[in-house]
C-alpha cells in the first residue's frame, strides 16, 4: 500500500517530464547554438531570425496564439519539431508535384497569399490544440506535483509513526523480557516453597495424625471397649468348656512343653485326674480366660504385627515416627515390643 502511494506519482511524472523535455529541446538547442552562429549583418536577417515561429512555450509565455504569432513566416521551415518538420516537407513536396507553381505576375502573388493564409490558419489551429494540450498537461503535472507533495507528506508522517511504533515495540519487548525473568524467578521461588512445604508436611504427618483424630474416640469409649473385650473372653471360655471334650485322654507330658505364662496357667489350673475322668470345668474356664486375655493383651499392645527379618527396622521406624510420644512415655517394656508371636518367648 505504502509503496504504491510512493511510486504512483513517479509513474505519472516521468512521461510528462520526458514530453516537456522533448518540447524544450529545440529551443534549448537553438539557445545553445546561437552563440556559435555568425553575427547577423543587417536588420533583415535579424527580423528573419526573430520571425521564426515559437511553438514551445516558456513558463512565463502567454498561450494566446494571436498575440505572439509570427507576422512573416519564413520561406523555409526550420522548425525543430520532427513531426512538424515532416508534415511541412510533405506539404512542400505535394505542392511542387500536384500544383504547378505560377511563373510570375499577380497570379502568383495571389496564389502565395491564399496559400499563406491557409497555412497560417492550419498552423494556428494546430498551435491552439497543442497549446491547450500543453496546458492540460501542465495542469495535470501541477496536480501530480501537489499529489506527490501530499503523498510525500503522508509518507513522512507514516514513516515517523512507523519509527515510533518500532520504538514502542522495542520498549515493550524489553519490558516483556524483564517480566519473563521475573516470572522465572517466581517459579523457582514457588518450587522451593513447594518443596519446603512437602518436607514440613512429612515432618508434621505424625503430629497431624494424632492431633486431628484426638476427638475421634474418648477415654470412656476405650474403657467400654475393654469391658466388652473382657465379656467376650468370658463368654468364649464358657462356651469352649461346654462344648469341648474334657476327658483325660493321656498322661500329661512334661517334655517339649514351652516355658512361659501359658504353660504356667495350664499346669497350675488344669490338673489331670484319673484316666477317663473330666478335668475341673471351673479351673479350665479360668485357664481359658487367662489364655485368651494374654492373647488379647498381646494384640492390643502390639506395636507391629509383622515379624519378618526387618522387624527391628520396622520397630525403629515406628519409634522415629512417634518420637514425641516416646519422650513423654516411660521406657517401653518388653511386652510392648513383642508382636503376637513374641509372647511365645515369655
Amino acid at each position, binding site marked *: 500500500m505504502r509503496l504504491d502511494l510512493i511510486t504512483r506519482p513517479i509513474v505519472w511524472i516521468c512521461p510528462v517530464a520526458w514530453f516537456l523535455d522533448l518540447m524544450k529541446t529545440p529551443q534549448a538547442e537553438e539557445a545553445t547554438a546561437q552563440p556559435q552562429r555568425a553575427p547577423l549583418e543587417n536588420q533583415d536577417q535579424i527580423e528573419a531570425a526573430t520571425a521564426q515561429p515559437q511553438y514551445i512555450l516558456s513558463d512565463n509565455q502567454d498561450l494566446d496564439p494571436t498575440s505572439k504569432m509570427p507576422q512573416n513566416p519564413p520561406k523555409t521551415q526550420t522548425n525543430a519539431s520532427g513531426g512538424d518538420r515532416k508534415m511541412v516537407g510533405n506539404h512542400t513536396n505535394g505542392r511542387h508535384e500536384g500544383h504547378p507553381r505560377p511563373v510570375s505576375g499577380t497570379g502568383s502573388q495571389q496564389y502565395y497569399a491564399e496559400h499563406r493564409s491557409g497555412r497560417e490558419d492550419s498552423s494556428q489551429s494546430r498551435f491552439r490544440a497543442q497549446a491547450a494540450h500543453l496546458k492540460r498537461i501542465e495542469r495535470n503535472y501541477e496536480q501530480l506535483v501537489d499529489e506527490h507533495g501530499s503523498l510525500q507528506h503522508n509518507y513522512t508522517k507514516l514513516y515517523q509513526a512507523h519509527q515510533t511504533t518500532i520504538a514502542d515495540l522495542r520498549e515493550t519487548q524489553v519490558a516483556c523480557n524483564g517480566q519473563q525473568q521475573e516470572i522465572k524467578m517466581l517459579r523457582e521461588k514457588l518450587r522451593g516453597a513447594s518443596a519446603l512445604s512437602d518436607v514440613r508436611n512429612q515432618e508434621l504427618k505424625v503430629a497431624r495424625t494424632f492431633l486431628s483424630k484426638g476427638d475421634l474416640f474418648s477415654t470412656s469409649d476405650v474403657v467400654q471397649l*475393654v469391658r466388652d473385650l473382657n465379656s467376650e473372653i468370658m463368654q468364649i471360655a464358657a462356651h469352649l468348656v461346654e462344648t469341648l471334650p474334657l476327658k483325660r485322654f493321656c498322661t500329661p507330658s512334661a517334655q517339649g512343653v514351652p516355658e512361659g505364662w501359658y504353660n*504356667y496357667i495350664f499346669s497350675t489350673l488344669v490338673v489331670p485326674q484319673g484316666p477317663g475322668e473330666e478335668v475341673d470345668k471351673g479351673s479350665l474356664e479360668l485357664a481359658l480366660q487367662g489364655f*485368651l486375655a494374654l492373647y488379647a493383651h498381646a494384640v492390643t499392645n502390639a506395636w507391629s504385627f509383622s515379624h519378618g527379618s526387618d522387624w527391628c527396622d520396622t520397630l525403629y521406624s515406628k519409634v522415629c515416627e512417634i518420637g514425641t510420644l516416646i519422650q513423654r512415655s516411660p521406657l517401653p517394656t518388653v511386652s510392648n515390643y513383642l508382636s503376637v508371636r513374641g509372647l511365645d518367648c515369655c
Partner: protein
Amino acid sequence: MDLSHENLPRAIANDAVQHLADLLSFRGVGNPIDNVTNIKKHGAEKLETLFTAARKLNTMIGQNIVSEELAVTVVPCGTLFEGEFMEDTHARVGVKPARRTVICTTDLGLWGRKQAKEVMKVLSKPKVATW
C-alpha cells in the same frame, strides 16, 4: 503368613487355636488329633470376633488417642497379689491377700494418664485368679 492384611484377626485366631490345642494335649485333655478340629469348630469364629475387637482397641490406643495416654494391662503370672492394682474375683476364703499369688489374668485392665509427667493411673483394674 502376612499379618498386616485384613485377615489378621483370622490368622491370630488360627494361631490361638493351634496353641490352645497344644496346651490341652500337653495336659492330657482330649485327643490331640481332634483338639484342633473341635476348637476350630466351636470357637474359631468367636475367637476371630474377639481378636477383631482387640485389633480395633490397638488402633484406638496406638493412633487415635492423644488427649490421654492409655495402656491395656495384664498382671504377670506368679506375682504377688496387690489390691491397689488388681482385683481378685476368685479369692479363696481364709487366705490373706498378701499371700496370694496370681495365677492368671481373667479380665484385662486399663491404665492411663493425661500428661507425660504424671504417673499412670488405674482406670480399670485387671481381674486375676490367685491361689
